[in-house]
Every structure is written in C-alpha cells, then in structure tokens.
C-alpha cells in the first residue's frame, strides 16, 4: 500500500517529518517498509518554455528545440512527438541525474550542441509514461524548480499491511491511526454535492440475486461528462500511491478508492445495454471478456455484474471490455458496492487476476461508507469532468451489516498486557480510533464497520497495546512457570548420538525430507510411499520412506564436487502412508554412510572404508548407550549387495539394517564407488539404551595374557569363535581380541589363520600358570571339536 506523505499531513494537520510518521506507524502495526522521495530525480530540473523548433538536416525524428528557463536560453535536441512551441516543459540541466541512470552531459548530436534534456514522466521518475515529454501547466513560470511547480516535495510511503487490516488500505484509514497516535482530529474533506432534478431511479434499477455475494450495491448516474486528462494535483496523488493516471473518470474512481478504501467502478451507460443492474453468480461456462481483453470461461465461483442479460463486470475484480469508459463516453453509471470477501477471493483466484479493487474487497471494505464514497466521486465528476449528477443514489442493501458491540473491561486489559493504564487513557485510545464508547466499567464499545477485524474484547486489548506502543509494556524480570526442565531422554539421545558420531569422524548431514518417487522405486519398489498431491517439482513428489535416499543423494552431490572420501550421518525421519487401519507412521532414524577412503596421513596410508568402519561407529554408539549385544542376520533386499546385507538386532529388538549398496542401485544415483550404509531406528534404540551403569571395582589381581593362533575353514565366523572362548573360559576370560587375520598364499586354500589375544583374570586370586594353561587347553579342545581348528605353528 503506497500513500502520499503530504496527503497524510493534509488529513491530520500534523507537521511530523516523514521519518517520524513512518516510525510511529510501524510501531503501531502499519509497517512502513520504504520511503521514496518523489523529487529523487528532480534536482536541477526546471520549468522551461519552448520558443522555437527547427528541423535538423538529415534527421527525421529529432528536432532542435530552443528553450528559455528564465534568463537562460538553451538549444536542445528533442525527439518527442508531442513537443510544440509555446509548451511549458521540464528541462533537465547539466549534471541532473534522472531515473534510469541518465546523467545530463554536454553532447553534440548531428552537429547540434545540446546541454540539457526535455523530460518524459518516466525520466523524472514520476510514472512509466515515456510516450512523449511531460507538458506542464501553461501558467508555470520558466526557471522555477519543477519540484515546486509540481508540488513534488513529497514522499511515497510504502506500507506492508497485515492481512487483518482492510481499513489501512486507504489514506483515511492510515490517517485514523495517526489520529489515535498523535491525539489529533482528522479533517475530513467537506464538500457539497449539487444534484440535478432528474432522478437516478428513473434511469437505472438494481436487483441483487445473490445477496450473500453482494449484500449492498449502490449506483449513480453522471451525465454529460467530458473525458480528459486529470488536473496535476489529482495525478500527483495517484503517482504518490503508485497508480498511473489514465483519464479523469478512471483517475477519480482511483482517487476516491485511495481516500476512502471503497473501490468504485464506472460503466459507460450507453454501452451498458439496459436500464437494469442484476448481480448474480456467473453461469457455468458463461463467456466474459475483462477489460484487459482476456476472454474467460466463467463458473459459479465468479460473481457477475450483468445488465440483466450479459455480464458487464466480474464483481469486485475487473470490469468488462463491453462497457468500458472510452474517450467519447458521455454518461457514466457509477457503482459502489460491498461484496463478500470470501466470494471475491474465490472469484479472483478463479479468474487468475489480482487488482487494487479485488485486494480491498477480499479483505473487507466498509459497507456503510458506500453512500459517502459514491457521493465523493460524483462530486469530483461534476467538478473535474463537468458532468451533471442525477438526483439520488439507487441503493440496494438487502442484508445490512451492523457495527459490533463489545463489552470491554479496562482491568482485564491491564491483566493481559501486564500494564497499569488508566481507564481514561484506554477510552482516549479507542475514541481516537473512531470507536464509540458508553459506560465506564465495563466500557460498551461500538466498533465501526470499517474494522471487521475487531470481534471480541481481546481485539480491543490489542488496539490499546499497539497504540500505546509495545515499548510501554514492561519486561518482567522474574521467571514464571516451572523453574526446571524435565530432561527427555529422546532429546539427550540425539545430542549424544551427535557427539559420539562426530567423535568417530562422521559429518552430520541434514535432509529436507522430500524425495523423488522414481529413486524410491529404484531403492525399494515394494516399500509404500507417501505421495504429495501438489508437489513443487516432479523430483520432490513423495516424502522419503528411507534415509538412504537422502544419503545417496548427498554422496552423489559430493562426488560431483570431487569430494570422494566421506563418513556421514543423519538423524531424521522417514514417512509412510497410513496403514489399513488408518494409522500414520513416521519413524525417527539414524543413517550412517561411509564411502571412499579413510583420511590417512603420512604415517598411515589411506585405505578404502567399508562395513567395519560402519560397524565401529555402531559399536561406539553401543558402548556409549550400553546397548546389549548386536547381532547380524543376513537378509535379501533390493538395495544392498547380497554379499553384505544384514538386519541388525539386539536380542529380540529389530534396530535396523546395514549393508553395501548394490552396484546397479549406486549406478542409478550416478555413484561409481562402494557405499556402505546403516539405517538405525531411534525408538527401539532408546528402549535398549541404559543411562546409568553400576560401578565395578577395579581389579586387584594381575592379569594373565595369552595368545592363540588358529587355522580354521574360511566360513567359520570369528564371532562364533569368540563366543565359544567366552563360554568355555567363563568370566575369567576378561577380554578376547582379534589381533590378526590372514588368508592367502601362506596358508592352505579354504582356510584362514586367526590370532586371538585372551586376557585372563580372576577377581579372587592371582591365577597360576597351570590354571591358565588349563583354561587355554579347554578352549583349544573345544575349538578343535566344534570348528575343527588347528593350532597354527609359527
């Protein structure tokens, strides 16, 4: 919403500088986003009079213009089609900086030395009009500054409005907030409308078929109008509101809309086609051409103004081409109406149009200001367009809208805001906003219909707060509510996962949660997918059903940026459609991904990362959260290579998956290196986590370390060997570690050699060599029996 600063001053009588107006309004809820000086491009631009025009030899389009600006006389080159001798024009002098980054310098064109330029409105930054030079009033005095001549010592104030404040979409509405803020009284324009004897009702009648869509429709007729350009003062008000002047009729309807917030529409009565306005829903597939020349096929979502037969305007959105005001228009049918905001919203969405008028109607204009607005416009039509205003308004108001009455308790207001404002101050604020008040405690407040956002007491409390200023509300310095925070394990869990995994050298990634259904199908065609009905693009058309989708996308992104070595994790959610019983499932998960080499150093060569790097990270988590032993069960999936593909469990609890991404799947993600991924489920992990462990006394007796070197079949699992050792030796085997693993040339085919270090220790005594020998002996016997193990000779 753009408003002229001077117009606000004119209405309020204030003399505040523009910055103060902006700040006070911003701090009361009408945010001023921008202050644009109208005179920005007018420095060194003066009034000049064209006294001579000469053809330039060899040039058709440009002429040499001689211009006087008071005492000075200049020869300028001018290419405008409308330049003529005797005109008063804006002349930009040497050094002027105009809109569009034009700086005036001395130039020589076709042998003519030119220092200065006659300007168009666009070059002066006043409008988009560049069809010719701007022609000033004939009474303008050459040599005076154009700023003074055009009263352009003004600013466009650009406000960003909140959606609940339709009243701010007019100068009067914004001035009303200033009235309350500054304690002044708005000077509402006084005018006297002189009507002719002929009655409006004799020429037009109004019928409303859809009273829900159109609770009020008022019409006036102005006869004998002359279509012409508007006077400068009117144009300037429009320019300062960012609206381009067109002709007096259109400009006047726009001016009154800016002033009152009520959009108006002018029809050419001769083209209207009947003496009856009928407001109805459009019929399905009814054709209608809006005045921008677009043909629309309508639906009943569109409210249509008709002449009883054919459409003449899409109500509240845009007029029709068939009844548009033209240069030869003589009689005007003027409409001022109140349309249902929800219906206008639907209608303009259906039509795909947003106009100054639809924006206002859809927020809610003041239905009870319609007679004032239509009279105000009629007054200008007579004053400016020279028309004759017919007698009376034809006003159809089948569903009157009445002001809301609210009971307001000043003490309640203070108890919500935490303030100690007096009841009188509150009254002052509310009256400043033109609310009527009777009674004292509670106050009975009548809310005018230009404030449809005020429905209940709390809305009035907000009015008090915003006009008094939020700065007037103190900042409490005591903490209220609970003084401690219950720690939820789930929050700590995620934080701790982060510290364990970053400590293990993993970088955290973050997915946005959306995914490409084609990729999800590649990964797992059988897994259900939650489809987005209105996706922003076809590659983000589902919610991800696995964190692996994100992980592979991130691996691909980094590979394409030549970052090939990575250890990644994400804590995030997977989403699924509702099951048969209508239960929606979202699952918090952790993904762990390794690909490429370890970082390596001058001491350790980089080596390819694999399954065991992931396993170590999971072991670190298991250590941290005291998870019971994790077991690996082979599974068949579409996305893991069948050689390395496991379901992870802890006891009976399913905690996730781990494996090597199958090559064909990796290829589909444009990944040409091995990727290992684990996806863990957070909820089961939380159930198996232990927060505290009970202290174990430190050992008193010495440990007895022994090594074992075995040769077994390659398919014997080391885990089973370790388990057997632990089972055989019992708790005396304090730790069992694998320090060597070998298969290859030095050993028979189909065999592998394993070096195992066992530490024996008893909590009760020092173990003797014989006791340890015994244990070792038992272990070896068991290993031989169960795994056919040989003790390897050195």
């Amino acid at each position, binding site marked *: 919403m753009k408003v002229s600063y001077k117009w606000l001053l004119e209405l309020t009588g204030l003399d505040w500088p523009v910055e103060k107006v902006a700040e006070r309004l*911003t*701090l*009361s*809820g009408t945010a001023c986003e921008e202050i644009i000086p109208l005179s920005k491009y007018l420095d060194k631009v003066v009034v000049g009079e064209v006294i001579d025009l000469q053809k330039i030899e060899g040039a058709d389009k440009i002429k040499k213009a001689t211009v006087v600006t008071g005492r000075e006389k200049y020869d300028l080159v001018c290419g405008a089609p409308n330049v003529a001798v005797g005109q008063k024009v804006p002349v930009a002098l040497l050094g002027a900086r105009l809109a569009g980054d034009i700086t005036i310098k001395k130039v020589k064109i076709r042998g003519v030395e030119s220092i200065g330029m006659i300007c168009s409105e666009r070059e002066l930054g006043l409008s988009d009009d560049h069809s010719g030079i701007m022609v000033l009033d004939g009474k303008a005095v050459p040599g005076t500054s154009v700023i003074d001549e055009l009263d352009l010592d003004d600013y466009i104030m650009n406000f960003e409005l*909140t959606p609940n404040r339709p009243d701010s979409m007019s100068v009067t509405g914004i001035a009303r907030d200033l009235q309350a803020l500054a304690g002044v009284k708005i000077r509402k324009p006084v005018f006297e409308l002189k009507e002719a004897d002929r009655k409006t009702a004799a020429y037009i009648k109004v019928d409303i078929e859809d009273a829900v869509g159109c609770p009020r429709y008022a019409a006036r007729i102005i006869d004998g109008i002359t279509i012409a350009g508007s006077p400068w003062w009117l144009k300037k008000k429009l320019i300062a509101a960012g609206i381009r002047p067109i002709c007096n009729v259109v400009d006047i309807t726009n001016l009154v809309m800016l002033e009152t917030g009520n959009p108006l529409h002018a029809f050419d009565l001769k083209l209207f086609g009947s003496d009856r306005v009928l407001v109805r829903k459009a019929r399905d597939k009814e054709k209608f051409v809006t005045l921008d020349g677009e043909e629309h096929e309508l639906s009943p979502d569109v409210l249509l103004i008709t002449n009883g037969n054919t459409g003449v305007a899409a109500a509240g959105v845009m007029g029709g081409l068939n009844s548009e005001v033209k240069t030869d228009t003589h009689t005007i049918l003027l409409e001022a109406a109140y349309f249902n905001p*929800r219906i206008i919203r*639907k209608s303009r969405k259906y039509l795909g149009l947003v106009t100054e008028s639809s924006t206002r109607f859809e927020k809610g204009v003041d239905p009870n200001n319609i007679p004032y607005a239509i009279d105000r416009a009629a007054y200008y039509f007579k004053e400016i367009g020279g028309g004759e205003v017919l007698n009376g308004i034809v006003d159809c108001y089948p569903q009157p809208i009445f002001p809301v009455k609210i009971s307001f308790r000043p003490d309640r207001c203070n108890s*919500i805001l*935490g*303030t100690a404002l007096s009841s009188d101050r509150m009254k002052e604020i509310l009256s400043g906003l033109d609310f009527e008040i009777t009674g004292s405690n509670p106050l009975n407040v009548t809310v005018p219909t230009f404030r449809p956002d005020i429905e209940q007491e*709390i809305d009035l409390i*907000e009015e008090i*707060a*915003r006009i008094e200023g*939020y*700065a007037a*509300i103190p*900042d*409490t*310095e005591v*903490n209220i*509510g*609970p003084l401690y925070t*219950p720690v*939820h394990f789930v929050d700590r869990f995620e934080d701790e996962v*982060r510290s364990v995994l*970053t*400590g293990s*050298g993993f*970088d*955290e*990634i*973050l*997915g*946005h949660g959306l995914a490409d259904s084609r990729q999800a199908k590649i990964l797992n065609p059988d897994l259900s997918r*939650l489809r*987005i*009905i*209105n996706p*922003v*693009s076809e590659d983000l058309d589902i*919610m991800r059903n696995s964190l692996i989708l994100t992980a592979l996308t991130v691996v691909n992104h980094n590979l394409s*940026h030549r970052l090939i070595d*990575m250890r990644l994790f994400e*804590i995030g*959610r997977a*989403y699924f*459609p509702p099951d048969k019983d209508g239960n*929606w499932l*979202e699952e918090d998960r952790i993904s762990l991904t390794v690909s490429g080499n*370890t970082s390596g150093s*001058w*001491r350790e060569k980089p080596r390819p990362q694999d399954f065991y790097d992931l396993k170590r990270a999971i072991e670190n988590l298991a250590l941290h959260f005291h998870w019971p032993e994790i077991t690996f069960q082979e599974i068949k999936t579409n996305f893991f290579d069948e050689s390395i593909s496991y379901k992870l469990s802890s006891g009976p609890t399913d905690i996730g998956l781990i494996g090597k991404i199958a090559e064909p799947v990796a290829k589909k993600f444009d990944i040409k290196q091995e990727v290992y991924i684990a996806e863990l489920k957070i909820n089961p992990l939380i159930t198996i986590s232990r927060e505290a462990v009970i202290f174990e006394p430190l050992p008193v007796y010495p440990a007895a370390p*022994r*090594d074992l*070197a075995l040769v077994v079949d390659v398919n014997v699992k080391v885990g089973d060997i370790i388990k057997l050792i632990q089972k055989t030796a019992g708790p005396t085997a304090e730790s069992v570690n694998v320090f060597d693993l070998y298969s290859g040339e030095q050993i028979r085919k189909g065999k592998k050699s394993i070096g195992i270090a066992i530490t024996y220790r008893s909590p009760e005594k020092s173990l003797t*060599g014989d006791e340890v020998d015994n244990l*070792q002996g038992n272990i070896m016997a068991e290993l031989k029996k169960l795994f056919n193990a040989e*003790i390897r000779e*050195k």
Partner: protein
Amino acid sequence: MSLLDEVTRLETEALREIKGADSLEALNELQIKYLGRKGLVTAVLKTLGTLPVDERKTVGAQANRAHQDLENHFQLAAQKFSTTRGKKDFDPTLPGTGPRTGTIHIVNRVMGEICHTFYGIGFETARGPHVETDHYNFEMLNFPPDHPARDMQDTFFVEGGRLLRTHTTPVQPRELEKRKPPVKIITPGKTFRNEEISTRAHVSFHQVDGFLVDEGVTMADLKGALVAFCKAFFGSGLKLKFRPSFFPFTEPSAEVDISCFLCNGVGCQLCKYSGWLEILGCGMIHPKVLENCGYDSEKYTGYAFGMGVERVAMLKYKINDIRLLFNNNLRFLRQFA
C-alpha cells in the same frame, strides 16, 4: 622349575633390568642378552623342539608372546634416550595423525543452542508429527477456513487427507490437550512450505516455537522471557524492539527485532542499513485457541513465540543461500567444525 615358569621368570627379570638401564648402549646390550640370537629367551624358544607336543604348544605360545612383549618394552625404553631430546631432525610441523573430528550440521547446532537457552529458563521439549491434520495445523489455531495459508500454493498436501505441517505450532494444541497448566514447552523441528526452491526459500525449514500457559501470564512476561532469550543467545548488549503484527493464533501479536549484532545498530549490509534484524514472532495466545483446547480463557492466559532456525543460522553465519544448508557439501559442512 617348569619351562613355563622359566619364561615368566626371564620376563620379569628382563623388565627389571630394562627399567634400570641408564643409556642406549646399556639397553642394546640387554636386548642382545635376552633377545639376541644367543639370548636367554631365544634359547628357550630353541628348546621347544625337544618338548612333547602338548607342552610345546603352550610353552611356545607363551614364549613367543614374552618375546614380542619384551621387544615392545625395549622399543619404548629406547625412546627415553633417543633422538627426541636435543636432536634437530625432529619435525613438530608434520600434521598430527589419527581420525579428524566430524561436524554437527549447522542447522541442528543452532537449533540445539536455541533449545538449550530455553532449557535454562524452564522450558521442556515436545515433538509432534510432521504429517499433520488440518485440524491441528490450522483449525485449532484459529485460522479461518479461507485463510491464504491454507492454499495449495503455500501448503503441501499428501494422499490420505493430511498435510505437511507449515509450522511447529500444532504441537501447542496437541500438548495443551494432554496436559494441565502450567505448560511451558518449546517445540523444535522440521516444517514445510510449498515454495519454489531459491536462494531465499526452500521446501523445508526448521522452527523453534514455544509457549507458556498458566494463570496470570501477561504480555510483560512474554517480553521478559524473550528479552532474556535474545540476550542469552545473541549477546547481553543488544536491544529489542517489539512491533505489532498479526498471527491468527495470537492476540496481541508482535514481531521482534533485535539490534544488529554485526554493526550494533549502526547499520550494515546484514541489517540492510536499518540497524535492526527481524528475529521472531510472538504474542499472547488467542483466547479462541485456549478454548479450542478446553481451557477457560478467563482463568488461563498464555504466550507463544516462534523463530526460523535457518534464518537465525543464516544471519549469524552470514550464509547467503539457503540451499547450501540442504546440499550437504562437505566443504560447507566442515566450515562449522
């Protein structure tokens, strides 16, 4: 004495002597004494062949291990006299070895910092579903049926009649329904908007919302809590500005600006030369929302606030493209180690 005991004795003796060695030369002599070709431990290993098979294996394993252990000890002891002290060829400028640390994603780090700041003033965390119902995302929060936010242009809808939550505020009615006052909660998490991805907008972003409902909660309490948060989070010297705003679920509503932490309010590129940064939205919970949740709005009042984590992170770290936060380029991620 069995051979096994002999090994143990040799090992103990060797360790004692290693400890007593006072020069590298002495140490080398000791190493020859025990582990040399004619050394004492080597001698035991040589006798293994003469033992019966069973004994050979146990003694062999033990002797081999002792041999290895002693070698390690000799190496360690040698370091005491070696090279490092006083020698010029040691190079401290070589990079350290071992794995480097990973990094927490900047959005999660900032979100965690925000949460922990609120934990300090007694807020606890609650979460909710990302795939929400219209009921909790809009209706309970006093959004009128035709509110623009309900448009297809702004909200993602999924099959099955639900939508992707557009804010974390639906957790507010969900928790209020479950609990009794006082309720003092923050709701961090993911949210979604149907927007074309650009430098300034993404389909997903993170929010931390919070609210307090109890008897006698005032707007002054809201201001106090947010002043405390902003000072704790951004720095104690900053100023705050509360501007009236509009949200369907709060009334009165406010937008909070903080004085720019980069230029201290003087004006710079970050704050677009205004000296202020818009940082969060807040207000008193609308009585209709409290009533929707079954609370007597005459008895109970409450405040609510919310902020965008990406926005805070982007301001704090001067990140100029929101897409960087979701691309997960390692060069980007590792800047925030």
